[in-house]
């Protein structure tokens, strides 16, 4: 066996001493020196937080309620696994079983128990070879350099290694989707499908259609896939997304509901189902889905205070204030010392006591106390909580006697989210209802004037030949409006021009690249960015 594990850090997790010993013994026999063992999911996560492992071999059975699936989910969610690390799930259940075929987070490989030393080692070797083969691509993706990742993909494809061809084409197409090069992605998927009907390539064509906003074609594609492969959860997810994009929440709800029937243990889908059912006033379904979410959340990293507040709100809709209060208590128990939970609880208590108000003499005083509590929490955490929750707080303050605090929060939210159209829309709605019509517009107006001034100054300096001055102006502008498409685009153009007229300084090239990466992240169109990337590449 050619594999050399001498320099590799390996985590072996299993509830069974013999399993840990067996694996350790096999690994040591081929030179492994750095092996850590854990018997529970909690300990595994603790080790993963402390150290960067090259291999994680995780038994499905662990000594706490967590399974290897949840360890993997949490490790990925918290970004505890370095890009080149390999996660192998050791299980005695064939993937043939429903549960495994419908999970979202798949490990690099499964190792089916019982296994021989040869099976384990050849699996490790195969994973390692594959990771090393793809490391250039994965490292660039990890750093956000998607164009460079595509370049490496194309290079490897030219080597014509048949065993890696489809893997590389799949990566290439996914990267093309990420940078918004839908034409390229479509070509790749279509070429594969011309040779063979492969479900993931068909799904890819659907995603291309979504990218091109060709929703009718996307719906036909995803529906076809679901009919043929009823277990293909991604097809449901995309179909629901399309319905949502078309503002058809009823249809989205029914699609997510089918997906949940196929895979009831997926917490994120239960959560989505709850929110959609809540929005569309399917109260009974929403209640069921929130409860399922909270139950699954006991061992999942994806549980959040908003799941409890969702359920409490359902009880309020059913006029069951006592049960709502009970849910708040459970949330406080589950999330001790979590600022988001504390604020969510305070917000709910206000509503609960107001709701109870009519029949209960203590209620007004309790509601007032909850308000005071909320004000104190706002003072304590201020901007360190999510914008969605801050907006909720603002709403509550505007409804109370504390309109000033409400206005203050809203003004700040407008300023910091002025370039996020979707969220801004939510703020504007709340402004219109609770403050005054056009209040948001009076805040946004000056901000856009300031933006125009920056652009004009930079353009003037640029035309006068003061490239440095123009650059400095735009750098100032990007600090004020970090997510503004126009600012970023102009800034990249000026940096590239400055590289062109002076020496191609590697550091400046890197800065330009980082802004291009940011532009991709913000979803700016392919035709705008690809030109700049091509120009920048000529200096490399």
């Amino acid at each position, binding site marked *: 066996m050619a594999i050399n594990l001498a320099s590799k850090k390996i985590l072996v997790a299993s509830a069974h001493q013999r399993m840990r010993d067996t694996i350790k013994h096999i690994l040591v026999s081929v030179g492994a020196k750095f092996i850590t063992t854990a018997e529970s999911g909690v300990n595994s996560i603790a080790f993963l937080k402390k150290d960067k492992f090259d291999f994680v071999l995780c038994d499905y059975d662990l000594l706490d309620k967590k399974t290897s699936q949840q360890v993997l989910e949490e490790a990925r969610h918290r970004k505890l696994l370095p890009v080149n690390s390999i996660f192998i799930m050791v299980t005695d259940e064939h993937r043939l079983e429903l549960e495994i075929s419908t999970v979202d987070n798949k490990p690099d490989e499964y190792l089916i128990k019982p296994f021989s030393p040869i099976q384990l080692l050849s699996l490790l070797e195969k994973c390692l070879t594959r990771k090393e083969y793809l490391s250039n691509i994965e490292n660039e993706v990890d750093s956000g350099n998607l164009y460079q990742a595509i370049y490496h993909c194309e290079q490897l494809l030219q080597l014509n290694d048949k*065993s890696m061809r489809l893997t590389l084409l799949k990566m290439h197409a996914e990267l093309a989707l990420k940078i918004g090069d839908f034409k390229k992605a479509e070509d790749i998927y279509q070429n594969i499908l011309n040779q063979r009907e492969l*479900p993931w390539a068909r799904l890819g064509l659907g995603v291309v259609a979504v990218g091109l906003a060709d929703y009718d074609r996307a719906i036909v594609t995803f529906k076809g896939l679901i009919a*043929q492969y009823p277990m293909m959860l991604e097809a449901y997810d995309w179909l629901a997304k399309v319905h949502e994009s078309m503002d058809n929440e009823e249809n989205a709800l029914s699609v997510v509901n089918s997906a949940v029937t196929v895979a009831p243990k997926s917490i994120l889908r239960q959560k989505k189902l709850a929110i959609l059912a809540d929005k569309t006033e399917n109260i009974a379904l929403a209640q069921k889905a929130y409860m399922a979410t909270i139950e699954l959340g006991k061992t999942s990293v994806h549980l959040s205070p908003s799941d409890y507040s969702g359920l409490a709100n359902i009880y309020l809709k059913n006029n069951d204030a006592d049960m709502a209060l009970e849910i708040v208590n459970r949330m406080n128990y589950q999330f001790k010392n979590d600022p988001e939970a504390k604020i969510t609880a305070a917000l709910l208590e206000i509503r609960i006591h107001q709701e109870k108000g009519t029949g209960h003499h203590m209620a007004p005083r309790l509601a007032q106390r909850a308000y005071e509590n909320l004000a104190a929490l706002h003072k304590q955490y201020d901007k360190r909580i999510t914008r969605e929750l801050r907006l909720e707080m603002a709403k509550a303050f505007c409804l109370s006697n504390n309109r000033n605090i409400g206005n203050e929060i809203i003004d700040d939210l407008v300023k910091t989210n002025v370039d996020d159209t979707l969220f801004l829309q939510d703020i504007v709605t709340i402004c219109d209802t609770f403050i005054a019509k056009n209040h948001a517009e009076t805040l946004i107006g000056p901000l856009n004037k300031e933006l125009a001034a920056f652009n004009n100054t930079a353009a003037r300096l640029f035309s006068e030949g003061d490239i440095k001055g123009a650059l400095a102006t735009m750098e100032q502008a990007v600090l004020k409006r970090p997510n503004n498409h126009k600012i970023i685009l102009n800034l990249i153009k000026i940096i590239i021009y400055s590289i062109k007229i002076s020496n191609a300084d590697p550091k400046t090239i890197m800065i330009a690249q980082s802004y291009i990466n940011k532009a991709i992240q913000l979803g700016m169109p392919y035709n705008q960015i690809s030109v700049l990337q091509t120009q920048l590449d000529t200096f490399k």
Partner: protein
Amino acid sequence: MSNTHILSSSFNSLLASSVNDIKNSLKTLRTLHDRLRDIHHDEKQNEFMQLEYESNRMYNCLMQLLTLYKLDLSQFSPTIDEYAAADILEEITNQHDSLFSFGKVEFISQCDNDLFCYCDRMLISNALSTLVNNAQRYSRSKVLLSASQENDYVVFCIEDDGEGYPESLMSSEYEQLPQLDLTSGNTGLGLFFAEAVAQLHSQANKRGYIITDNNSQFGGARFKLYLP
């Protein structure tokens, strides 16, 4: 009223839930077995090995039954992708490594490195694995597992030098359930499963299928799985 009427309507689901129940019991047994082995790690290795082997056979059999049931209800669809045939053979070889090193039967695997096939890897390797296991039980001295291209199909072939298949397992009508034979111990499940799995693989108007005969180059049974 005849007895069959009691069973006809929901017997399938009753069987399936029983299978599921037995499978869960078996899981518990296996956990217990693991625990016992933790305690007695130096003793009775052969017995523990035998126990593990037999419980694996049972587990595999139950899994195949459940998969068939889910297939029947359209609750299961294969995940087709491209794989090197050599990788699939290697996986099966590695799985049987300890089993063959135990007995006197030689295991050979043969395949071109640049042969690729489209399939659900788990399903195909599970189906082949069971049949390799059977071949090992019935062969005298060797089992050959090979893969090759035949026209538009990739063919996986298992040959041994045993007595050959009994007449009842050589039909080409695998869609028919095998004749119930409680005396011989040959359930035919492995072949039935392989046929069902082969059928799940299609390309254009071609479908996968299996063939069994006694034309092994070593004079025993020969099994062939065709994938389009």
